[in-house]
């Protein structure tokens, strides 16, 4: 549980309101039940007459002032009045819904609503229905997701979550809030079982969904882990299959590299060969970058051995520098300067004494960036 939920000093007992939204009245209506579709300002409601509204006070020279309508100001003037007295009542609870409808990003309203939910022992299942509807309307708002998390925690019941989040993701498969909530629910309540299947379905729909790839890594690292040789092999195969289907997909390559970068990129049996094959038919900047990283990895690990195989090193270096050149001049020109820089750095680190034959580096001894500053027109 988060935060400081303050305890009650007094409860204000008030008859429950029935409000109906609709047209705004120009003059006060004593009995709005006569036409329930007419919206009545709080200032004109008899059962709010005891409360003095509190206007917003921005002083003599307000900055970034938002021009609120009468209806908006009215609701929030009464919200401020309730807050000041820390009123704990049904009418206060009802007003928070109006305030949320006008501005669902006001975190104070949401906090106050949670205070009331507890103080009035409100039906949390009903609150789940309420927050479900709000999130469906405004799925990119931080406050609504935080509120849902609080209610789920109070209920200690995550049973609706995976389905609900799946529905939100069906509207926007990359909604960061939705994925975050999903990870929280799964981790908190240990709901790992069907998640890999869920991820695979999403990747079937869109193999470039980076959020789904991230979730795949999340699930596996928290369940079987990647150290199991069988799992690692399966995942490598999975990546390569997805790459064959859609070669220009950074997410798949990031996942492959991510799994292997601390397990010896260059020492996975048969992988380098497979990638070199793919280079002929399914090339991409990501494939080439992966190859570069393999060669760099082999240079690093071989340089740490007792007996350094200089020939092997020269070959790896040459191949790595060729990749840099290919990327810089042809396959990933937007990052030309970066690939040239990497080539220079690699050469400086592993180039040895013979100066090399490639055209990349002007100064073999340079280990610092030597790029010209870019001029703007």
């Amino acid at each position, binding site marked *: 549980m988060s935060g400081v939920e303050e305890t009650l000093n007094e409860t204000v007992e008030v008859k429950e309101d029935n409000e109906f939204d609709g047209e705004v009245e120009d003059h006060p209506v004593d009995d709005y039940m006569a036409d329930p579709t007419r919206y009545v300002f709080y200032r004109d409601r008899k059962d709010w007459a005891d409360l003095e509204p*509190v206007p917003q*006070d921005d002083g003599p020279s307000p*900055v*970034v002032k938002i021009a609120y309508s009468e209806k908006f100001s009215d609701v929030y003037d009464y919200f401020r009045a309730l807050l000041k007295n820390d009123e704990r009542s049904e009418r206060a609870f009802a007003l928070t819904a109006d305030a949320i409808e006008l501005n669902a990003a006001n975190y*104070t309203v949401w906090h106050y609503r949670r205070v009331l939910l507890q103080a009035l022992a409100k039906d949390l299942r009903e609150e789940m229905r309420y927050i479900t509807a709000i999130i469906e309307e405004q799925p990119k708002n931080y406050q609504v997701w935080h509120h849902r998390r609080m209610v789920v925690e109070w209920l200690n019941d995550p049973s609706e979550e995976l389905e609900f989040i799946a529905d939100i993701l069906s509207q926007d498969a990359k909604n*960061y809030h939705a994925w975050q909530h999903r990870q929280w629910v799964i981790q908190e309540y240990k709901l790992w079982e069907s998640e890999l299947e869920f991820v695979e379905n999403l990747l079937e729909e869109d193999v470039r969904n980076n959020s789904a790839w991230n979730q795949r890594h999340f699930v596996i690292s928290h369940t079987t882990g990647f150290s199991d040789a069988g799992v690692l092999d399966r995942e490598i195969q999975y990546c390569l299959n997805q790459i064959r289907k859609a070669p220009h997909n950074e997410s798949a390559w990031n996942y492959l590299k991510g799994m292997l970068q601390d397990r010896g990129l260059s020492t996975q049996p048969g992988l380098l060969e497979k990638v070199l094959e793919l280079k002929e038919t399914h090339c991409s900047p990501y494939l080439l970058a992966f190859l570069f990283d393999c060669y760099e990895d082999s240079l690093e690990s071989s340089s740490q051995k007792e007996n350094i195989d200089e020939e092997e090193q020269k070959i790896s270096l040459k191949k790595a520098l060729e990749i840099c050149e290919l990327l810089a001049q042809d396959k990933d020109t937007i990052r030309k300067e*970066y690939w040239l820089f990497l080539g220079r750095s690699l050469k400086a680190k592993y180039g040895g004494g013979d100066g090399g034959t490639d055209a990349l580096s002007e100064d073999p001894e340079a280990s610092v960036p030597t790029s010209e500053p870019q001029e703007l027109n």
Partner: protein
Amino acid sequence: MAEEESQFEEFEQIDFLRDRHVRFFQRTLQVLPERYASLETTRLTIIFFALSGLDVLDALDMIDRNMMIEWIYSLQVLPTEDQSNLSRCGFRGSSHIGIPYTTKGPGVLHPYDSGHVAMTYTGLCSLLILGDDLSRVNKQACLAGLRALQLEDGSFYAVPEGSENDIRFIYCAASICYMLDDWSGMDIQKAIDYIRGSLSYDNGFGQGAGRESHGGWTYCAIASLCLMGRLEEALSQRELDRIRRWCIMRQQSGFHGRPNKPVDTCYSFWVGATLELLDVFQYTNFDRNRSFILSTQDRLVGGFAKWPDSHPDPLHAYLGLCGLSLIGEPSLRKVHPALNITQRAFQHLQQLQQTWRDSSGSCLRQH
């Protein structure tokens, strides 16, 4: 052939409409229509975007500085007489709670009044931009409020009542400590642990452990470590190189925030500034970045939008300018990449901090 040529000329001539942007920010500082209601609790961040934007444009001279400074100080949550609310001090985003306007203490006791970490951060920045000396900031109260927001795992809440907690608020906290020159506001090591825990398998940073890597959170991670002076202590050279790679791969024309997502003007700053902090921004393609940012420029009302042919907003207008400043657009002031204020405002901060140190030094010498 002629048509192709004239299209090419048009492309080359996308010009930067400085005056439109000045007016955009000036209007932002005045009145916004009701459809901006969702910004009420974050109005101080909007002021920051406008003021810092005008600063980058070197157009602050037309602002009534004193008026703005007073208004910002009216948002400070000050300690009450009995100091019982210290853990709630800082700055509010706006007057939405209904506290009567005042720029003086002591604080008013109110059951729901407290600061918000992002508002304390942007409030301090805004005061600095306006040339204020922060002498009316109750620094100890701000730091007490900050300490109250940090969780065991090192991340921060936004408000003491509780909220979501993640890396964004670590960045706000680090900026606050940096500006106030006082790191007692946070447990640095715990924050570093949380940041490290947010490093994804693909070498970007997510909002927390396990979460998808993202340009905005990567900025928060790296900028925080830079402000703490712990970048190379917290991350190995290998990790830093991998992070550089993740960041530089975000450039498509402009930059996007996550792999396989569309480019968006604001990432020209979030990712660009991160690359600058990592010393490799010089290896990005300035021309294509510039072309994209300018394609989101609103030629009529000024400002920038996230995408071309979309509505401009203060955040994208400000970050679009910062993105252009990073690539050296003439007529724009340079931006401090970690603190996200102009170098001019940063120098003002440095001078202030020097006077604080001098005066505390002289106090010590007197005893």
